[in-house]
C-alpha cells in the first residue's frame, strides 16, 4: 500500500487515475480506517486530501456555502453563519459518531461512503445540496439525492473525487432540521433519519419544502410527496399527517440487526412529523 498526500486537486486526480489497483480517498478516515481494520478494504493507494488547502475550508458568499471535502464535522459547528443558515445540516453532521469522530469525519466522506443510513445525507438532500466532483476531464455538479446509486456505490467514476458540497443561500423565514432514531443516545448508526427544509412567507405559510429520508431504503431518498404535503399550509395536523404518510409510503426498508421493516416505517412517520415541526418552528424564529 502507498500513502500520498498531494497538495492540489489536480495531483490527487492524476494519482487516482494512474493507479491500476484499488485506490481510496482519505478525508476523515473514520469509515476507511475501520474498513481497513476489519479487512473490508485493502487499498493499494490511499490519497489523503487534507493537504489540499482549498478543500479544508468553508466559504460563504451571496450564492451560498461551499464546504470543502476535507472539512470535518467540528468545523461546521464552529462556523456561525453556516450553523444559523443551515442548522439542520449542521446538526445532522454533528450527530455522526462521537466528539472524537467529529474531529475527523467529513460530510463529503459521509456522502461518498454511500451508506443508506448516513446521517448527513437526508439533511443535505432536504437542503438541495449539490456535490462538486472533479476528475481528469474537469468538474461536474451532482445533486446529493442523485449521488448514491446503491448501498456502498455512488456516481463517482474511477479517478473522480468530491471536492465540495454546496448549499444555497437562505431567504428570510427558512430553516431546516434533522433527527434520527437510534436505540441509544449516541454512537449508533441511524435506524431512521429524516431531514426537512422549509421556506415560508412572512405570514408563516410554507412556500417550499423538501424532505430527505435515510436508512429506510437502499439509498437515501428525496420524498417529494412529503414535501408537497407541507407546501401551502401553516403546518396544521392534517399537513403533518399527510407528510408522515408520504414518508412512510416511500419507505422500503429491510429487517436487519438495527431494526425491523415495521419498526422503521412507523418511526419514519413519527420522525417526519417531529422534524417538519422543528424546521417550521425554526423558520418562524421560534427556536
Amino acid at each position, binding site marked *: 500500500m502507498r500513502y500520498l498526500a498531494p497538495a492540489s486537486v489536480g495531483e490527487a486526480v492524476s494519482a487516482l487515475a494512474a493507479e491500476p489497483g484499488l485506490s481510496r480517498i482519505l478525508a476523515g478516515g473514520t469509515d476507511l480506517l475501520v474498513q481497513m481494520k476489519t479487512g473490508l478494504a485493502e487499498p493499494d493507494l*490511499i490519497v489523503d486530501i487534507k493537504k489540499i488547502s482549498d478543500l479544508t475550508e468553508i466559504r460563504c458568499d451571496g450564492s451560498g456555502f461551499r464546504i470543502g471535502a476535507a472539512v470535518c464535522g467540528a468545523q461546521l459547528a464552529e462556523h456561525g453563519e453556516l450553523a444559523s443558515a443551515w442548522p439542520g445540516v449542521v446538526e445532522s453532521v454533528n450527530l455522526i459518531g462521537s466528539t472524537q469522530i467529529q474531529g475527523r469525519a467529513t460530510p463529503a466522506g459521509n456522502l461518498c461512503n454511500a451508506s443508506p443510513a448516513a446521517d448527513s445525507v437526508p439533511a443535505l438532500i432536504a437542503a438541495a445540496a449539490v456535490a462538486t466532483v472533479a476528475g481528469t476531464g474537469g468538474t461536474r455538479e451532482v445533486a446529493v439525492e442523485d449521488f448514491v446509486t446503491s448501498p456502498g456505490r455512488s456516481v463517482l467514476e474511477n479517478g473522480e473525487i468530491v471536492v465540495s458540497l454546496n448549499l444555497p443561500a437562505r431567504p428570510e423565514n427558512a430553516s431546516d432540521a434533522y433527527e434520527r432514531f437510534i436505540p441509544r443516545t*449516541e454512537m449508533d448508526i441511524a435506524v431512521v433519519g429524516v431531514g426537512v427544509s422549509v421556506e415560508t412567507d412572512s405570514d408563516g405559510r410554507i412556500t417550499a419544502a423538501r424532505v430527505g429520508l435515510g436508512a429506510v431504503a437502499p439509498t437515501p431518498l428525496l420524498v417529494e410527496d412529503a414535501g408537497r404535503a407541507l407546501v401551502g399550509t401553516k403546518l396544521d395536523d392534517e399537513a403533518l399527517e399527510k407528510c408522515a404518510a408520504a414518508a412512510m409510503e416511500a419507505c422500503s426498508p429491510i429487517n436487519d440487526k438495527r431494526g425491523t421493516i415495521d419498526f422503521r416505517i412507523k418511526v419514519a412517520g413519527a420522525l417526519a412529523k417531529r422534524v417538519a415541526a422543528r424546521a417550521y418552528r425554526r423558520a418562524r424564529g421560534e427556536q
Partner: protein
Amino acid sequence: MSKIHVNATVNGDAVEYLCEPDESLLDSLRDRLGLTGSKEGCGTGDCGACSVVLDGRLVCSCLVLGAEADGRAIETIEGLADGDELHPLQQKFLEHAALQCGICTPGFLVAAKALLDKNPDPDETEIRYWLAGNLCRCTGYDKIVRAVMDTAEEMRR
C-alpha cells in the same frame, strides 16, 4: 511495503519514526514511540480508549494513520501532567474513585481535558454527550461525570 518517515511533535517533544503506510497513529505511538498510555479497545473508533489531541482536535488515534501525523502536534495522556504535578482532572479522578480497572481512564482524561479547554463550565448533560465516545464498563459513568464536574468547578475558581 516501504516505510514512511514521519516527523511530529508529541507532548511538546520533536519525535521521528518510521511507520508502515497502513499503520494507525495508535500503533505508531505504542509500538514505535513506546507511549502505551493510549489503549486499543476496539480499533474502530467506538470506545475512545485511544483518544489523543491532534493539532488541537480530539480524535481517536486508531482512526488516524501514523503517516498523517507528519508535521503535526499530538498530545497524549503521557503529556497531561506537568512533570510531577498532576492535572486537576487526574487528581479529581483519583479523589472521586472515577476509575476501577483504569483501561478507559487515559481516554477519558484526554477527552475531558479537551472539553474543559473548550468549555470551562459544562453542565452534566454536556459532559455526558461530550464523553459519549468514551466507553467505560466498570463505573457506570457516575463517578467520572462527578469528577469532571468537580474539576471544572475547581478550575473556574
